[in-house]
């Protein structure tokens, strides 16, 4: 069966190639920093699970109290890898490279020569992901169990990327290393922001384990005046949005707000419709996602990817939609659930 690990491995090999090309790039003063950073990403994608098969770490014989084996040792090694990534990024070890590519003028010439045919390879990735997912879901193909359940879109996304590369190389015959060098040009433009979303997910896990959610839930629960349905709805929806802004993710906020306010007050005490309170409460959280740098993959990564001067440019463009929509959500919960 094709599991998601295949996709991790493919991405891991790509990052390994980025690391190697970085190390060989004499024009980049910080080439070894880049090589180490992308090399660690490659290691995580290729071996993140395989660390569990290393021999146990046993310090008890040396008088220590540490014995780690299997998954425990893997978690520790992955954690050290995360700290190493953060140190490289945080202490300025990464430099932006400038691999050879075409000039603006050459690109105009190519685009003139190739015409609208150039859009066809660009559509291979979405078309493969779309057709693959639909075929897999709605034809007997899906019942054969070739692909890990619920992961088919990612697998077809990878397949689409490989197909597109094949077509582009066969058609336009760029130098063999061009696709990897062009990929490195883009990943270096994004830099450490490419890894930040995963870091924030890890932070969320530590917050959850430390009980941050429970504390926030208690605090919001304490500020609600008794007997007012409207004010309770207001605190619930604003709490969802604000807690989402802190955590960067509505998924982390929902269980907290639901157990602190949604279920005991809105549903049980005031008899609100559970489906409305659940569904629209989550969407109030999504309004928070639009307004926070903590939701890095939606807000900071595109700013890097589009080479914006202002890291918060995307958030600023979203606030004007997020705030009115949050008010709409508050009204919708109040009028539809009661």
């Amino acid at each position, binding site marked *: 069966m094709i599991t998601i690990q295949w996709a991790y491995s493919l991405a891991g090999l790509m990052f390994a190639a980025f690391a190697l090309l970085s190390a060989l790039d004499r024009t980049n003063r910080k080439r070894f920093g880049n090589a180490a950073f992308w090399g660690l990403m490659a290691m995580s994608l290729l071996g993140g699970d395989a660390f569990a098969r290393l021999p146990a770490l046993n310090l008890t014989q040396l008088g220590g109290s540490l014995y780690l084996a299997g998954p425990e040792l893997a978690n520790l090694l992955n954690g050290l890898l995360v700290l190493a990534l953060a140190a490289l990024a945080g202490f300025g070890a990464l430099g932006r490279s400038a691999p050879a590519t075409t000039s603006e003028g050459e690109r105009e010439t190519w685009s003139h020569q190739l015409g609208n045919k150039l859009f066809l390879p660009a559509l291979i990735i979405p078309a493969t992901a779309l057709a693959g997912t639909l075929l897999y879901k709605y034809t007997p193909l899906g019942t054969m169990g070739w692909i890990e359940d619920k992961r088919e879109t990612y697998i077809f996304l990878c397949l689409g990327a490989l197909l*597109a590369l094949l077509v582009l190389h066969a058609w336009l015959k760029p130098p063999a290393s061009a696709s990897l060098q062009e990929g490195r040009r883009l990943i270096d433009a994004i830099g450490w922001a490419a890894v930040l979303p995963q870091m924030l997910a890890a932070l969320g896990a530590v917050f959850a384990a430390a009980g941050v959610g429970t504390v926030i839930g208690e605090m919001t629960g304490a500020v609600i005046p008794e007997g007012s349905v409207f004010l309770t709805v207001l605190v619930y929806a604003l709490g969802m949005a604000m807690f989402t802004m802190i955590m960067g993710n509505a998924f982390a906020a929902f269980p907290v707000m639901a157990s602190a306010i949604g279920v005991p007050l809105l549903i049980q005490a005031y008899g609100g419709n559970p489906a409305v309170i659940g569904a629209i409460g989550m969407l109030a959280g999504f309004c928070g996602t639009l307004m926070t740098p903590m939701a890095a993959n939606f807000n900071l990564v595109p700013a890097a990817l589009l080479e914006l001067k202002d890291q918060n440019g995307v958030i600023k463009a979203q606030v004007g939609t997020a705030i009115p929509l949050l008010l709409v959500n508050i009204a919708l919960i109040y009028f539809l659930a009661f």
Partner: protein
Amino acid sequence: MTNYFVLAGILIVVAGFALRLNPMLVVSAAALATGLIAGKSPIEVISLLGKAFNDNRIIAIVWIVLPVVGLLERFGLQQRAARLIRAMKAATAGRLLLVYLIFRQGTSALGLTSIAGHAQTVRPLVAPMALAAAEKQHGELEEASAERVKSFSAATDNIGLFFGEDIFIAIGSIVLIQATLAGAGYNLRPLDLAVWAIPTAICATLIHSFRLLRLDRSLRRRLI
């Protein structure tokens, strides 16, 4: 006894972002401080970080498209996209993004969230097309206006995705709502929840469309 000191991590994050320190360091410091304050050993905290990082590697898969995007750029895809838009008389940045909003929301509502995105579509196609439409209408853009058009391109992708995906029944957030409410004794079908995402989705489309059309007007005013 509630340990309010675990909130220190949140303060570190807020202060770190406000002082524009490197977010990778800020996040690591916040995680270590929170874990230690909650009474965990350094090894436990680092292991927790490592496990969550490893469990979320799926976020990194989308970078697999970068070599294709880079290669397409090498052969002038952005220039081609801009040229195509210049040939369309009715195209404006706002109208173009409006069409993309509806496409993104519609496909997300069908569960097709990964077929588009910032790396897959916004950088190679949507942003250059929106810029070309704005330049066709208003001539060369000064930097601040170009930044706004690019920011709105990314914003439109996010808004289309967020307020489309919850209409689809098998998406993570619907599953989470269903599981959380089931834990409290309310057994709902995913479809019961998904239909209640529709009113917000319609309002999101209306509000953001209005802002996109205003973007065209504000670009015009700046340049007169």
